[in-house]
């Protein structure tokens, strides 16, 4: 600690746009944790890029005072990968929901883990498609009957994102809770500092379509002990419940970072992206 007051406060990293998330939405906790992290690390807003796909949580870049890109559904990871490879000087953070990240963008999840490009991915997981009014997502429990589309439940076992990340070669894997923005802020800070792809699954309750998740606050428990051995990480995962939080696995793995090319002129880009028939 030191006695110099930070020049930038968490509020300085918020935009003037009013969030349209439902009151009580877990995504507020993630926005607060991010802005607290940025202030704690005194990151220059113009050196931060927040990349998202589609969904409630993917609106987050609009609410932050930083560069942002609200991409197409499920494509936050390839966009963030491209940016992080071409601008390794930036702090690149991709944000998704469970549907955007694990279903529509599920393929990119696997390859972002194995490529290990240096950026952070935060998935706000509420186990429901909220923006489309409450359908079962990849992480929804098999017996959830809260949607007209699955009145008897989906009968599908929920995806296990942390196990998948571990299997796919991710070097930084954590699960946190949006109701603990200070703890989440610490994890995000560690993820940003980690050299390589860092994945944080954030349990972020949907108060509207999954009101029973309001009880999570009393049920989440810090339980993971960070290890750098995959076998021990798997053992912890198999023993843990779905609401166990903490840093599970951190290991220094080879990154994919080709040397940036600076020999492209803007005219050349124009040529490459020109549509046939353009003048």
């Amino acid at each position, binding site marked *: *600690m*030191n*006695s*110099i*007051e*930070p020049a930038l*406060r*968490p*509020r300085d990293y918020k935009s003037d746009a*009013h*969030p*349209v*998330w*439902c*009151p*009580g*939405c877990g995504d*507020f*906790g993630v926005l*607060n*944790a991010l802005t*607290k*992290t940025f202030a*704690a690390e005194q990151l220059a807003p113009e050196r931060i890029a927040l990349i998202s796909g589609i969904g409630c949580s993917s609106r987050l870049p609009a609410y932050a005072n930083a560069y942002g890109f609200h991409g197409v559904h499920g494509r936050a990871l390839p966009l963030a990968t491209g940016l992080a490879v071409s601008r390794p000087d930036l702090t690149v953070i991709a944000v998704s929901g469970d549907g955007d990240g694990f279903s529509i963008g599920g393929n990119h999840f696997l390859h972002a883990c194995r490529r290990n490009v240096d950026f952070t991915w935060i998935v706000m997981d509420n186990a429901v498609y909220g923006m489309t*009014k*409450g359908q079962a997502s990849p992480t929804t429990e098999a017996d959830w*009957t*809260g*949607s*007209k589309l699955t*009145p008897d439940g989906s009968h599908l076992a929920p995806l296990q994102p942390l196990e998948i990340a571990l299997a796919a070669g991710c070097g930084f894997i954590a699960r946190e*809770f949006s*109701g*603990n*923005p*200070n*703890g989440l*802020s*610490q994890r995000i*800070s560690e993820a940003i500092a980690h050299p390589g792809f860092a994945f944080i699954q954030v349990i972020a*309750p949907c*108060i*509207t*379509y999954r009101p029973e998740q*309001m009880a999570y*606050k009393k049920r989440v428990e810090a339980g993971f002990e960070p290890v750098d051995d995959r076998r021990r990480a798997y053992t912890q995962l198999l023993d843990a419940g779905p609401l166990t939080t903490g840093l599970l696995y951190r290991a220094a793995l080879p990154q994919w970072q080709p040397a940036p090319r600076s020999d492209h002129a803007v005219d050349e880009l124009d040529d490459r992206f020109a549509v046939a028939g353009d003048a």
Partner: protein
Amino acid sequence: MDDLRLFLSHAVALEGDAAERYHELNETLDAHNNPEVAELFRRMEHYSNLHLAEATERAEAAGGVIRLKPWEFQWGQAESPESAETEASHYLMTPHHALKLALAAENSAHAFYDGVRAATSNPEVRKLAAEFATEEAGHADELDRWLERYPEPAPDWDEDPDPPVAVD
């Protein structure tokens, strides 16, 4: 907590976080077309900012606010004590619910300061913590009086003729 500057830095963060949370609730309820409750949260934000200015002044007089990372604060809980719990908010909430939310936050702040008062070995910190605890208790009493003007609404207060989801 025995260091005066550390204690006052906690007080500054507590009021700052409270103001930020009320600001967030004000914006959100405004976005959800609940102007009466939004205005109430705006007023709560205003009061928190007044307390923030007071705490900051005291901290500066004691040598300045110590810069701590969010996870370095010793709250004894996930969030700083006076941050209103967002899970209890709702787009159809009434002033009664908003005041209950604020009351819980004031009581939580009182418990924090009272806990510091009981545990510290620094007489100066003990004196200030007792003063702040008394202030928070005063705020809670004031909210109790406001609540008399806004009695508990009927049980169907959250009934929405066009609900976001309906499952038969």
